[in-house]
């Protein structure tokens, strides 16, 4: 008999058992009456011999039950009743648990975003950040060091440098300050980003004099009105005209 059938036939089985035991007792009484015992005495004697019918039915029916699941269900109901009776204690418990869960969720959300989540590039496991430390001060790398690393290091497929910077651009009629990044020309190629529109920097655009080229992030392009004419045209950045190209939608 499969478990599903067992569940749905429980009630039916219990009824069968109760009915069967009732008929058993009835037959026992009839037999005693036939042997000459008065009906009232026969009923009394049969019931005494038979014992507690409810208890027998319960014990017989226990065989079909799942003690673990039913025990768990009983515990849950008991706990619910107790909690309902002591409302103050319940409120304190629920509040404590809520704060605990909330705090943990907040901490781990930040942890995940800053430490655990993979970078949004095609092969994030192959990306590393390198910095130099000079007299205890770390974080920045000189241009010459970068050039040396690029020339002499064979451990990396590509090296790219970047630094945060702010730019003034003309957004419509207004001048706006935009926080962006100054990068080497192979920046997007190294990260493996795909382009939404336009193109990547050309290698020669990393050279002095040819570097008046900007790539707009998708977010900035939308901020400037999602104008497709911006791509490949010039926009004023820090007072000078730059060719603008559009990059991928992620960053």
């Amino acid at each position: 008999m499969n478990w599903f059938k067992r569940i749905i036939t429980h009630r039916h089985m219990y009824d069968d058992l109760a009915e069967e035991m009732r008929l058993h007792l009835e037959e026992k009484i009839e037999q005693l009456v036939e042997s000459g015992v008065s009906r009232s005495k026969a009923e009394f004697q049969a019931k005494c011999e038979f014992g507690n019918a409810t208890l027998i039915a319960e014990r017989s029916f226990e065989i079909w039950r799942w003690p673990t699941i039913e025990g768990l269900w009983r515990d849950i109901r008991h706990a619910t009743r107790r909690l309902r009776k002591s409302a103050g204690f319940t409120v304190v418990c629920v509040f404590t648990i809520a704060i605990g869960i909330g705090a943990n969720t907040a901490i781990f959300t930040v942890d995940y975003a800053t430490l655990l989540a993979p970078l949004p590039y095609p092969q994030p496991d192959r990306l590393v950040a390198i910095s130099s430390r000079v007299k205890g001060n770390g974080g920045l790398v000189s241009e010459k060091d970068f050039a040396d690393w690029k020339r002499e290091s064979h451990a990396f497929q590509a090296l790219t440098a970047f630094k945060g910077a702010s730019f003034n651009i003309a957004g419509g009629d207004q001048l706006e300050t935009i926080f962006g990044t100054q990068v080497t020309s192979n920046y997007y190629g190294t990260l493996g980003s795909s382009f939404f529109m336009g193109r990547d920097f050309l290698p020669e655009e990393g050279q002095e004099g040819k570097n008046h080229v900007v790539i707009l992030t998708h977010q900035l392009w939308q901020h400037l009105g999602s104008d497709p004419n911006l791509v490949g045209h010039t926009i004023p950045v820090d007072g000078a005209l730059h060719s603008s190209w559009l990059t991928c939608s992620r960053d």
Partner: protein
Amino acid sequence: MRVVYGLTSHHNLFYSMLVSAMPIMSPKSPHQRDLFPGALEMMILQSLRRQPMHGYALVQHIKQQSNDLLQVEEGSLYPALQRMLKEEFVKAEWKVSETNRKVRIYKITASGIKHLEHEVFRFERMLEGISLVLSHAKS
């Protein structure tokens, strides 16, 4: 399991074994003892193998066949029958008896017969072992 019997003066081997092997569990009177585990199932299956019958008839049958030595309590019979229904050693169906009574008739199944034969074999081996020990003890 609660098959109980009253003490009599018969001291056959089967009877002696029950007295010595079984812990005293019940007690309607100090002279009543429980059988060893599996004994009731074995007797029920053997009875049903001869003829399908209902609960009351089983009690009467075992009582008669044992010359009134064994009295099956209803409190033991129904849990045992439910256990065997679950194990699918027996199956039950509602019928109307010859005396025009609504009864739930139990029938032994093929796996019940197999189980019975296995249990009887084990019981006979055990009995043989106990007999040997007792006969050595006497000599």
